[in-house]
């Protein structure tokens, strides 16, 4: 299982990853402006699969600290989107990517509702719309290339590799530089674990991003499992209700017949 470890402390906010993503996926360029901070574009959408969120945090002693957080699909180990999709257009590949099949999608947008990280985006402007999101460059992985963003990163902030090894490396960094990192790898267990892993200088709550995609209240249980658990019960409910109804139907029918018979005999 592959993953990307994003060490946000190494990121310099150059946006080379955004450019590389656009180039590889042939996404149209667009005229944009700085948003609430230096982040640009302001939101992920069908034409922007990743973006760097800029955060200025002023510490009590007046020093400004910059945080650059690359936002993209988390590629969950147990993706809620894949549990939600009625036609199975979204799938978690063994190598790590969560990919989307254009030819199956009916456009119900339940994946967008279900994703705890609010990643799938819709082509609202199209008469024939599809869901769009980061693909983990599954097409590049297939030809033994690392994702375009990772290969373009000049500082090594985006590290591509085996998930187990990256987690080990992440914990090694936390251990080797106490105080530099928030002592938790976001994505190790978040929402049942993800293939996009984050090392940050401060928690996402402190960065004010827990309500902008990086939720910290998700727990370790993948939410897609709630749907799967429900579906596991469905056949039993069907059999139980069906059996009970059939039984009672014939019981009532028989009761009616006996009543008519009794009336006749009277």
């Amino acid at each position, binding site marked *: 299982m592959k993953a990307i470890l994003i060490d946000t402390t190494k990121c310099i906010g150059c946006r080379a990853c955004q450019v590389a993503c656009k180039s590889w996926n042939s996404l149209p360029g667009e005229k944009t402006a700085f948003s609430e901070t230096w982040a640009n574009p302001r939101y992920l959408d069908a034409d922007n699969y990743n973006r760097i969120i800029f955060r200025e945090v002023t510490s009590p002693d007046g020093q400004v600290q910059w945080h650059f957080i690359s936002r993209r699909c988390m590629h969950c180990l147990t993706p809620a989107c894949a549990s939600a999709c009625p036609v199975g257009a979204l799938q978690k590949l063994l190598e790590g990517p969560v990919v989307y099949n254009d030819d199956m999608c009916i456009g119900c947008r339940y994946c967008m*509702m279900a994703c705890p990280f609010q990643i799938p985006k819709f082509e609202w402007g199209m008469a024939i719309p599809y869901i769009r999101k980061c693909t983990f460059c599954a097409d590049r992985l297939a030809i033994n290339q690392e994702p375009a963003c990772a290969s373009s990163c000049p500082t090594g902030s985006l590290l591509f590799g085996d998930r187990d090894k990256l987690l080990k490396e992440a914990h090694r960094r936390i251990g080797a530089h106490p105080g530099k990192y928030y002592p938790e790898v976001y994505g190790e267990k978040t929402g049942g674990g993800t293939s996009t892993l984050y090392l940050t200088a401060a928690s996402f709550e402190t960065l004010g991003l827990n309500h902008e995609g990086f939720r910290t209240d998700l727990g370790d249980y993948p939410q897609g499992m709630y749907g799967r658990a429900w579906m596991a019960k*469905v056949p039993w409910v069907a059999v139980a209700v069906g059996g009970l109804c059939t039984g009672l139907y014939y019981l009532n029918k028989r009761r009616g017949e006996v009543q008519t018979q009794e009336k006749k005999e009277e």
Partner: protein
Amino acid sequence: MSRENKIGRGRAILIGLTALGIIVGIYRLFAGLGAATNLSDAYPWGLWVSFDILTGVALAGGGFTISAAIYIFNLKKFEPLLRPAKLSAFVGYLIFIIGLFFDLGQPWRIWHPIIMWNPQSVLFEVSWCVMLYTTVLAIDVFIWALERWQKYEWVEFFRSIYVFLIVAGIVLSTLHQSSLGALFLLLPEKMSTLWASPAIGILFFTSAIIAGMSMVIIESILSAKAYGRKPEMEIISSLGKGLGLTLVIYFAMKVTDLYARQVSVLGLDWPHVLFYVELLVCVALPALLLYVPEVRNSAKGLLWAAGLAAFGVVLNRFNVSLTSYGGYRDFWYFPSAIEIILTIGLIAQAILIFDFGMRYLPVYREMSGTAETH
């Protein structure tokens, strides 16, 4: 103005509204969802899902509720209500499917779940149940058409598989009415805790029964008025009693759920106000009203109580899917004119089809001449 004139004028208005709906529907198909609606990446689901789909299916729950009352709980006195209830259920599902057609990004792929299976997906199950249940209802309506065409040997054939249709109808309804709630099991973090409950499936199921009973009461009284018949007050008020009881059970379930999850129910913010309206004005109040015999035995009283209860279910579906959704974001959604016009068009169309069915099919037993065999 005579009654015929009034009805004629009513029909003309409904046809006009339906036509408007068709026009904006065509625009939606060619222009895309972004141009036609106010939906966005922040609000992927809007009015069409909340009303046309979630609310529509709940309000069409009368068919299986009355059918279960008669055949499973042996309450034979409700038999006169069965066919109108099933007709309105059929119309409801038909309209729901048309609504879904416009809401889907790629409506021409609406059939995909038939061959593309994802058994992990609650929505997959809902789509199968809705497809099958609509078929069951269509067979029911078809039987009435056969009666009208006096093809009795065919009617006999369908009568022989009738038990299958009844049981299938109840099983399929139980499954998808609850599963529509279970859709929201996956996104508790995007909802207000007032509604984000692990018990949402069974709450949806119970409230669908409330919606179904309320709609049968409302339709019986209104259609009696419209077609110049006398409402069968004895049966309807008895159904009102059942509705009151179901409301009490639902209220108890809601309170238990909130208590078990330790939800803070005191507050004056927007979700809490909607919650109070939903639970107190639209569940507790109609339950109290229906407890009073004078209310239960008057058409007006029943209409009010059932109207409140039905509105409560509508509000619940909106609260679950829209008003409480994404409360933490800096985004805002209000349906576009096209979303509203299309929805109104669908309602108008539903009334027209229901009216057509009432006039051309043997919906009332005494009109049909053939008794339903059990």
